[in-house]
């Protein structure tokens, strides 16, 4: 199977637009395709398709529970906790777990010598699978409101990918920090979506630097290609980065997308272009292996 991530440093450049349209295009070509919505803070891919729910699993994390009767207020758990999730005031005999800060590493349970710490699971979010049309499916990562980091839920969603499928498309969260890295880490190729504005350009450079550090092959789609200026194109040329496609800003495209419609369903030349991009990635990937 080949895994392709759709990513961008800047938000709102069109990751979801490209991901959903590529997914649709590949389905129509009868590829067994999985779309993974890794934007767990703001997942939207499912809204673009008629889907049927297959299954939904809670993603859990362990957090400590303190048994005040056994606790001697020695402070060792507080010392072991690297996330400041244990609040302690020994003279007042106060000890509290701040669950929002806990990462579930278990260090406090190892630290405690008095059997005063047990653990309970709490939910971080859900991984939900949906089917579309025949064999194709969408896997959605979604964190609960108030949860700090989407990383565990993203990992759980990626682990659900059926490797028997032909292609997986991973719709990445924006930025270049941990959630983005977790999404692209196990993919074969990354499509960066940008727009030719100063903000888009600045964030693109940051994405490129990051992907070069972790040694991922990638190419760039310029969305809303007729706004802004030429800096992005000049940069791509100078840096020898492949420009996969340019998509002009059209009110019709924006209108269709805003209503949750797939542009590739009606725009055949757009569909053909997307198909060629994926075919080229697949051939290059196979030839280099």
């Amino acid at each position, binding site marked *: 199977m080949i895994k392709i991530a759709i990513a961008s*440093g*800047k*938000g*709102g*450049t069109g990751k*979801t637009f490209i991901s959903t349209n590529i997914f649709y295009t590949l389905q129509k070509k009868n590829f067994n395709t999985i779309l993974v919505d890794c934007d767990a*803070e*703001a997942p*939207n891919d499912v*809204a*673009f398709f008629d889907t049927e729910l297959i299954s939904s699993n809670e993603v859990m994390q*362990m957090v400590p529970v303190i048994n005040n009767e056994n606790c001697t207020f020695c402070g060792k758990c507080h010392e*072991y906790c*690297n*996330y400041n999730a244990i609040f302690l005031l020994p003279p007042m005999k106060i000890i509290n777990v701040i669950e929002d800060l806990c*990462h*579930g*590493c*278990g*260090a406090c349970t*190892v630290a405690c010598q008095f059997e005063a710490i047990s653990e309970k699971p709490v939910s971080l979010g859900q991984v939900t699978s949906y089917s579309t049309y025949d064999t194709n499916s969408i896997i959605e990562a979604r*964190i609960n*409101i*108030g*949860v*700090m*980091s*989407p*990383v565990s839920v993203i990992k759980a969603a990626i682990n659900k990918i059926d490797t028997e499928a032909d292609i997986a498309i991973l719709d990445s*969260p*924006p*930025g*270049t*920090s*941990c*959630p*983005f*890295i*977790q999404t692209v*880490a196990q993919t074969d190729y990354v499509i960066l979506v940008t727009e030719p*504005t*100063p*903000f888009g350009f*600045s*964030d693109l450079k*940051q994405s490129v*630097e*990051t992907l070069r*550090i*972790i040694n991922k092959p990638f190419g760039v789609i310029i969305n809303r290609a007729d*706004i*802004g*200026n030429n800096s992005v194109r000049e940069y791509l040329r100078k840096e020898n980065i492949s420009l996969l496609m340019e998509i002009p800003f059209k*009110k019709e495209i*924006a*209108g269709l*997308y*805003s*209503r*949750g419609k797939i542009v590739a369903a009606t725009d055949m030349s757009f569909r053909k272009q997307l198909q060629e991009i994926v075919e080229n990635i697949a051939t290059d990937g196979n030839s280099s292996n």
Partner: protein
Amino acid sequence: MEIAVISGKGGTGKSSISAAFATLNGKVVLADCDVDAANLYLIFNPSYEEEIVYISGSKAVIDHSLCTNCGICMDYCRFDAISLINDRVSISELACDGCVLCSRICPENAITMAVNAKSRMYSGSFRNGEMVYGRLSPGEENSGKLVNMVREKAKQLSKEYGLETVILDGPPGIGCPVISTLTGVDRVVIVTEPTISGLHDMQRLAGLIKKFNPEAYLIINKYDLNISMSTQIEKWCEENYIPVAGKLSFDKNVVEAMLQGKSIIELNPYSNISKKIKVIWNKIINQKK
């Protein structure tokens, strides 16, 4: 007064609107809290006065000359970061959460922690006041802590220069850095766009904001790209007691301003969009609690 501009969905126009707010009238402190993709410095080109190293966390590193491959660390690690590779215990930098537990329990003291010291916070003056921004190094976590640092610095500058208004340009999503941007602010301005993703992401963000209970306002940016979706958003806001402070139409001058390194107000203070932004700002600022 601290005013946070956030959005849920990326690319709805947070930074352009923050830049406009920052150049409306009196001098302000402007803090770019989108530490993952800071962009406002591109518009305002602030002077370089202070650079502070931000330690985002640490990663476990194994000393193979001391390691006996006993595997105890593997049993304790809950992040699947330690595995046997070619019969040798190895730690994945990508998966390591920096909890320090492996380093604490290693009987041979073969594991040490290496700090991530590549992220930075910068501050300086710009043409309408003082500016602070953070830049998180690629792949790093804990962006919320860097946001806290940026806000602390902004507050300090606000006191030092007697600038009452602090504008926070927030990150997308609903995770850790957004929570850090929201905590304890006086006003929240949500910028959304009339798309199905814009609506969903705004609803999730509103759910998060409820937990913090600040005074929240909504701006529908590019509302004329889909008027019926805009109406739907307005209706939802009314039902959920979020006042719509204003609607801005799609305007190519917003990109033009960015290209010239100006805010939309600086580009043309008397254009329709500039006038509307002024009205919105006055609504937000003058509302008595």
